């Protein structure tokens, strides 16, 4: 009898909060967009699914052992934790929200010793990390996940078109203005003092990186500067990457004349294997000399690319592009999903993030296009400004958009290969931007 009661009081129906319900609905929408609308399904499907798991009442899949211990509020457990975390509390005391809050704050601010003590208490009372929490610690906490994805992306990237026309790299640089412009925007929004809509400089930077239009870079930066925003940041980044074909064309058309959009570019020279092999090493050395903080991200990217281009370790590059990146993608998605908890996501900040993220994409697109026009002022063999928008990266979607808009204006004008240059340059550009941000704001 009392067993059946336990089943009921332990059930999701009995315990579900409005927030959890809302988040589950939101995650179902993510799944719908991923499956039906094919919005970056490789990431949004596991993210959405992980989000549902994270919001299952009582399961605590996204909580750490200590958080799970706090959740069940057993007096003796709280007393032990109070001692470990140095929170004023004795066994008899009623557990008000203030008390719980003080525990959570103490846990967040705990130093390594207090933390270890609290974890020992939780373990001794039989509480463990939730499944998703373990995934998060291994895959994102250690940063290995985004780094391996980046290695795989490197192994899939062809720098040929960029090497054939190096000056298009500048377009990839200009488009990064979307990142830093958005930081400014976030600061401005904060200064307007809408309550609930304020950001620290770390949060602002993290939001800006959405403009990098590059999933692993966004996750990498968020995990270091503002882990509590990671869920919203990743969802925004991948959603907008999927929306590139909707966001970019109007901006591209608005900023260019029909004549400019018709510009035909000279056929690209073919790039030899030797150049392709040397390039990633050049990038690596440059990173080593100028920005060590970007070394992990760009280092793994260059390793992947070198494995591919060298042609002597095909079995490794093959694995990096398939088995390995797929395995990591599954866990990365679930780990990101574990950050989609109601208290973090159902928040005015999230609206701000979605709004600013969109702005970041738009600004990046615009500055890319404008840079192309600027370069045309000075050089005689003209660039079609439509390829400037590809500088935001979002490989290869943005390049395809450039190509499509080009064809709309001139059916003979195939810009795809030309757009791939700024497209891949944009990846390097935002990784460099990430390095700068981490250098100044991390730790």
């Amino acid at each position, binding site marked *: 009898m009392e067993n059946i009661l336990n089943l009921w009081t332990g059930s999701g129906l009995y315990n579900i909060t409005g927030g959890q319900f809302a988040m589950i609905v939101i995650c179902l929408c993510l799944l719908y967009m991923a499956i039906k609308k094919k919005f970056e399904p490789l990431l949004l499907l596991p993210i959405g699914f992980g989000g549902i798991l994270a919001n299952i009442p009582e399961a605590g899949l996204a909580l750490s052992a200590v958080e799970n211990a706090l959740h069940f509020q057993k007096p003796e457990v709280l007393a032990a934790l109070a001692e470990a975390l140095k929170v004023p509390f004795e066994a008899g005391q009623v557990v008000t929200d203030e008390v719980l809050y003080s525990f959570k704050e103490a846990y967040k601010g705990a130093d390594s010793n207090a933390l270890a003590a609290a974890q020992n208490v939780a373990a001794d009372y039989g509480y463990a990390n939730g499944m998703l929490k373990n995934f998060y610690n291994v895959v994102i906490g250690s940063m290995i996940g985004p780094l391996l994805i980046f290695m795989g992306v490197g192994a899939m990237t062809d720098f040929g078109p*960029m090497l054939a026309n*190096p000056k298009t790299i500048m377009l990839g640089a200009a488009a*990064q203005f979307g990142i830093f412009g958005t930081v400014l925007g976030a600061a401005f929004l904060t200064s307007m003092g809408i309550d609930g809509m304020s950001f620290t400089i770390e949060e602002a930077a993290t939001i800006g990186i959405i403009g990098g239009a590059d999933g692993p870079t966004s996750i990498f930066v968020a995990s270091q500067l503002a882990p509590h925003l990671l869920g919203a940041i990743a969802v925004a980044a991948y959603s907008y990457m999927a929306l590139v074909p909707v966001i970019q064309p109007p901006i591209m058309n608005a900023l260019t004349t029909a004549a400019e959009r018709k510009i035909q570019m000279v056929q690209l020279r073919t790039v*030899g294997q030797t*150049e392709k092999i040397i*390039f990633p090493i*050049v990038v690596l050395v440059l990173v080593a000399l100028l920005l060590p903080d970007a070394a992990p991200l760009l280092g793994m990217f260059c390793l992947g690319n070198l494995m591919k281009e060298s042609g002597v370790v*095909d079995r490794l590059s093959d694995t990096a592009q398939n088995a390995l990146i797929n395995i990591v993608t599954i866990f990365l998605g679930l780990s990101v999903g574990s950050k989609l908890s109601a208290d973090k996501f159902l928040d005015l900040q999230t609206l701000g993030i979605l709004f600013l993220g969109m702005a970041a994409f738009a600004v990046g697109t615009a500055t890319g296009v404008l840079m192309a026009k600027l370069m045309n002022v000075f050089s005689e063999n003209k660039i079609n400004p439509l390829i400037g928008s590809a500088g935001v990266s979002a490989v290869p979607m943005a390049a395809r958009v450039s190509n499509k808009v080009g064809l709309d204006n001139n059916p003979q004008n195939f810009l795809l290969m030309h757009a791939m240059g700024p497209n891949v340059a944009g990846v390097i550009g935002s990784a460099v931007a990430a390095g*700068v941000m981490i250098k100044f704001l991390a730790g």
Partner: protein
Amino acid sequence: MSELMSDAINLMVVGMGFVFVFLVILVFLTSIMSKMVSKYLPAPEPVVAKTKVKKNNASSDAQLLAVLSAAVAEYRSDQKK
């Protein structure tokens, strides 16, 4: 102006500045590299092709053989009819 604001501007200036410096240098290095390569070591195109083929590793070469022979067998049997 709020400290946040100034921090943000600061970050923007330094950040964008550095991104440009980095990529401008990259443009130069790349161009030089390409020139030197095309001058001193003309690229052995065939290699590229070879690697492409090598891509399917040992086990799938075996597969390829299996499939080919199967295909031929298939063809022969059809001939008979």
